[in-house]
């Protein structure tokens, strides 16, 4: 019997994941809160532009309101919404997840525990995802990371799901490289460290991921930001984990962990990425994930007595952009450097 799969949140990354699963013959239902996107893909199918492929697939797509008339349940739900949209989509989909189903937290930030709190730890699998994509027009997605440079780390966060990671790995392997990781929450924090560097700071200066590090002062800045996030994570009990397909020896004993991770991200995303997800949020006038990434570092730092001034600057400047008081601009690097504590 074919498993029933739902992808809840089919923005750029959710659409890329759905398209690859559909291409490989899986029974996929796409569910999203953006009506124009759902209507477009229903009418014309979903289009993904990869560097070496134009992928076009027919889809089954639902508005959120269609769930109440669906009368079916899913074996697997991949949650690919924004990190701040974690609890409510989990509550929304909960009645439609089978008792022995698995829900996969694919988002940035530490959302796996939120999901477990809603649908139960025995139905939760955590996932670290490295994939970059963009969507500006309904139905049309640009995927920046190729399948070989897309990486997933899946893992259990509760003994009750031990051994079931393969059920998810067998699906995600159609989208990118998928490893089963022992300490997935540490892996998610490692990704959060990368995000503290690679998202909001680059969105503030409004440049490509590949170009931002070349701005004068940027490299020192991101090391500061990442080191704070690493320190807070260590105090929280998260160990350095090889993510993005790095080998343990590549991160062990290095005092350049933050840089190693960051260089890998730049290498994988490559020059193809035009705008990271936070910059896309700014361009769309939409709330970004900064509160759950840099903001989380500040919050946990305050609780643990660790100073996190660099992340605080990033949160403050991002809020100014969201409030319309500042625009993403390469010139903001001067502001960043000036505000950054020495």
């Amino acid at each position: 019997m074919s498993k029933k799969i739902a992808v809840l949140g089919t923005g750029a990354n959710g659409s890329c994941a759905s398209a690859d699963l559909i291409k490989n013959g899986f029974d996929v239902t796409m569910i999203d809160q953006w009506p124009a996107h759902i209507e477009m893909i229903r009418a014309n199918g979903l289009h993904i532009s990869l560097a070496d492929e134009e992928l076009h697939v027919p889809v089954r797509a639902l508005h959120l309101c269609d769930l109440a008339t669906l009368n079916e349940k899913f074996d697997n739900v991949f949650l690919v919404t924004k990190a701040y949209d974690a609890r409510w989509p989990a509550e929304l989909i909960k009645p439609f997840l089978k008792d022995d189903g698995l829900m996969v937290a694919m988002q940035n930030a530490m959302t796996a525990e939120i999901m477990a709190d809603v649908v139960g730890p025995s139905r939760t699998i955590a996932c670290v995802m490295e994939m970059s994509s963009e969507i500006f027009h309904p139905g049309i997605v640009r995927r920046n990371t190729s399948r070989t440079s897309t990486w997933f780390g899946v893992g259990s966060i509760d003994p009750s799901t031990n051994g079931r990671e393969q059920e998810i790995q067998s699906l995600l392997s159609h989208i990118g490289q998928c490893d089963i990781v022992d300490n997935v929450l540490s892996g998610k924090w490692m990704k959060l460290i990368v995000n503290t560097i690679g998202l909001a700071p680059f969105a503030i200066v409004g440049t490509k991921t590949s170009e931002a590090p070349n701005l004068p002062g940027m490299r020192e800045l991101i090391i500061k930001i990442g080191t704070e996030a690493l320190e807070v994570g260590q105090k929280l009990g998260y160990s350095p984990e090889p993510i993005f397909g790095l080998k343990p020896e590549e991160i062990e004993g290095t005092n350049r962990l933050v840089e190693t991770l960051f260089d890998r991200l730049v290498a994988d995303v490559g020059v193809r990425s035009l705008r990271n997800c936070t910059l896309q949020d700014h361009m769309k006038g939409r709330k970004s994930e900064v509160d759950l990434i840099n903001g989380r570092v500040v919050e946990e730092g305050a609780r643990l007595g660790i100073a996190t001034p660099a992340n605080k600057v990033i949160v403050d400047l991002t809020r100014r952009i969201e409030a319309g008081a500042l625009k993403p601009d390469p010139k903001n690097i001067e502001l960043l450097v000036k505000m950054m504590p020495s």
Partner: protein
Amino acid sequence: MNKKIAVLGTGANGSCIAADLTNAGLDVVLIDQWPAHVEAMQANGLQINLKQGGEIHAKVRAHHLCDLASMNEMFDVVFLVAKSYDTRWHAELIKPYLKEDGFLVGVQNGMTAEIIADVVAPSRTLGCVVELSSYCSTPGEIKRNTAAERTWFGLGSFHPSNVGKEAEIEPILKHAGKVDLVEDVLAAKFMKLVINSMTLGTMGLIGGDLAEEQPAGMNELMMRLGEETLAVGEALGHPIVPIIGLTQEEIEGSNRLLQTLIDTVNSHIGPGRGPNTTLQDHLKGRLSEVNVINGLVVEESAKRGMAAPANAAIVEVTQRIYAGELKPDPANLKLAIELAG
């Protein structure tokens, strides 16, 4: 200062309320999960056709759920008028947009006030009982059965942190109907649940209209349902309180309490209302609220070792309709009575 108001969930009842508040000149945004309805309202405004004749038109500000992330607004008051089974996720969705001293008011059937309090904190929650019948089948167009002067809201606080705060909401809600401030709003909501347990699932499964003459056996079944619900309400500690405009004298010591409640609902809505909310759900192939109304009675009764076979029968037949095994039909009454034993 003008309060920023949102109506979250603008199906039939939410639309009626939002139209009245908008036309009263209040600062109201409508937020809903049904894209076609939102698009119709954005294009043409909201059209409310009154059963008693006449129509209301409102130029409303309507938004999709996904617009919240780019609205950059916080609300003083949010009226949640979604289906009661959609309560928790809606409350979680709107939580970041509710001011710290704002209120989320569940204008819904079912015991949703405690769920809302669990999400946004008791200090930001007010309870509300609503008596308003309306119908929506075409995006942007609502049929309102209960006239504004017959529409009733019972509004109240149920936590020490916000006693008396209901008085801030009353001036807003009164544009949509009569508002009574009620002392024990959870008891009042349970009284509404008593009515709903008798009338919604039953009329839904036979495809009937409460205002019309009922098939043989229906009245007895409704009385059994109401008695079971009252019994578990008493076990839960909810006193019998007057709602939908009845007075204490009218309900006190009455051995016809349940019949009085049904008669009062009927006198407020009148004949020719069209399908009730549960029958509308069946016709749309949509999940109904029976699980959180009759189902709640069954669940709470079971916890206390009490029997609620009539409510269990309604849940069972309704489930078969949702599963597509049965259609709303007068013949289903026999099945329900059999199952109730």
